[in-house]
């Protein structure tokens, strides 16, 4: 007993070091396993406030970029309104969106990105909207030129979203021209590219093909423009193409985003 006590006193610094390292490793592993940060609340409140302050300070420099991207988005909206009006006039049942029977129309909540990262393995960004603005975990986040991420943790006034540049992000995407679909993952190539997997070999793909969201998940509606095919190949012996997609949105300059809110309609029997 005496020996043990002396051992502990002699190596107390080393033991303290070991203890704290084990605690840190447990934190790392837990965080990696279920993406549930214990810091969810403090993250959204303490660092959220600080980031908001800093973001306000540099916001002015980004005004020109913001204005450009907003006006581009306005133009796209006009175009969509025009197309919608035309399809309403035609009133062909086939033109109705597939999910209209189970979902209410989408609502978009606009938000601003106040903290962002692109150079880690698992990237997140923080937006200045939270549960007070009816944000819920699992909602999709889109940006003027593509998709941005999925809401992960929601605080009262801020929420943290998993960026599409995250090792756990899998987005169901399809090729617009022939409707083959696969899942889009980030293989840490670089922040401008993602990999579209599981497109079968018989699909005909051209460089420059448009990649859109497939609408098979309840996160993103169908038809949001993600990017274009840059190159494609088959891994040796595989029956599936690996397609490198150039993202249309520059995640590094993410600023104004829209959170997609859709509520499930209660099923009614007629």
């Amino acid at each position: 007993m005496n020996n043990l006590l002396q051992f502990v006193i002699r190596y107390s610094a080393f033991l303290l070091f070991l203890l704290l390292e084990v605690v840190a490793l447990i934190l790392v592993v837990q965080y990696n396993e279920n993406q549930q940060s214990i810091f969810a609340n403090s993250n959204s409140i303490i660092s959220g406030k600080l980031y908001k302050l800093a973001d306000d300070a540099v916001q002015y420099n980004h005004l020109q970029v913001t204005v450009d991207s907003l006006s581009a988005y306005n133009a796209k909206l006009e175009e969509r309104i025009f197309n919608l009006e035309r399809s309403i006039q035609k009133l062909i049942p086939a033109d109705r969106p597939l999910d209209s029977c189970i979902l209410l129309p989408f609502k978009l909540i606009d938000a601003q990105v106040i903290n962002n990262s692109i150079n880690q393995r698992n990237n997140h960004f923080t937006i200045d909207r939270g549960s007070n603005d009816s944000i819920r975990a699992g909602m999709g986040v889109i940006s003027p030129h593509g998709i941005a991420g999925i809401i992960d943790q929601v605080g009262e006034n801020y929420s943290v979203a998993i960026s599409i540049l995250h090792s756990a992000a899998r987005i169901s995407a399809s090729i617009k021209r022939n409707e083959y679909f696969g899942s889009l993952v980030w293989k840490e190539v670089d922040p401008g590219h993602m990999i579209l997997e599981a497109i079968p070999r018989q699909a005909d793909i051209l460089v420059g093909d448009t990649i859109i969201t497939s609408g098979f998940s309840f996160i993103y509606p169908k038809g949001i423009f993600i990017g274009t095919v840059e190159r494609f190949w088959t891994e040796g012996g595989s029956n599936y193409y690996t397609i490198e997609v150039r993202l249309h949105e520059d995640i590094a300059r993410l600023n104004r985003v829209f959170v997609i809110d859709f509520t499930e309609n209660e099923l009614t029997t007629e």
Partner: protein
Amino acid sequence: MNTESIRHIIRAVLILLVQVLVLKRIGLSNSWIWMHGNIFIYPVIVLLLPFRLSRHYVIVIGFLLGLLIDMFYDTIGVHAFSLTATAYARGLLLSYLEPRGGYQLSMSPTQYSMGLNWLVTYTSLCMVIHTFLFFTAEIFTFVYIGQIVLNTLVTFFLSMAVIMVYHLLFNPKT
């Protein structure tokens, strides 16, 4: 709370602010260098703690500081892991780098009292340990050892440059 500890706390807060508000933002661009590198200046807080501070305090400070940085970087545990190890290694390195007469009470781990050569050796050894363990814990498997080494090298040189600029510019005395 004497003036010295207050000075250390104020410096720690300022360095933390620079780290999370300025240096973290610099990394937000698409270029190759920021894909593989970060700039870490915050280990300086641990490295600059006085010689006579007990090892236990240094380790606990390193751990808590790492957790704080983790909150801002959304990397729970990774910075805490590497900074705790750095804080422990600091004690071993200090006894390894001890000058012939031992450390005097008036000395502190700065260029002012130990000279530039000693400071560069001490800082770079600590930073190699810190950056290597950081990327090991972040990537969490040795399968990507090439990537770990590449990231470590890029980050190490960027961080060392910034830290040495800090030392030469402000020349902290304690």
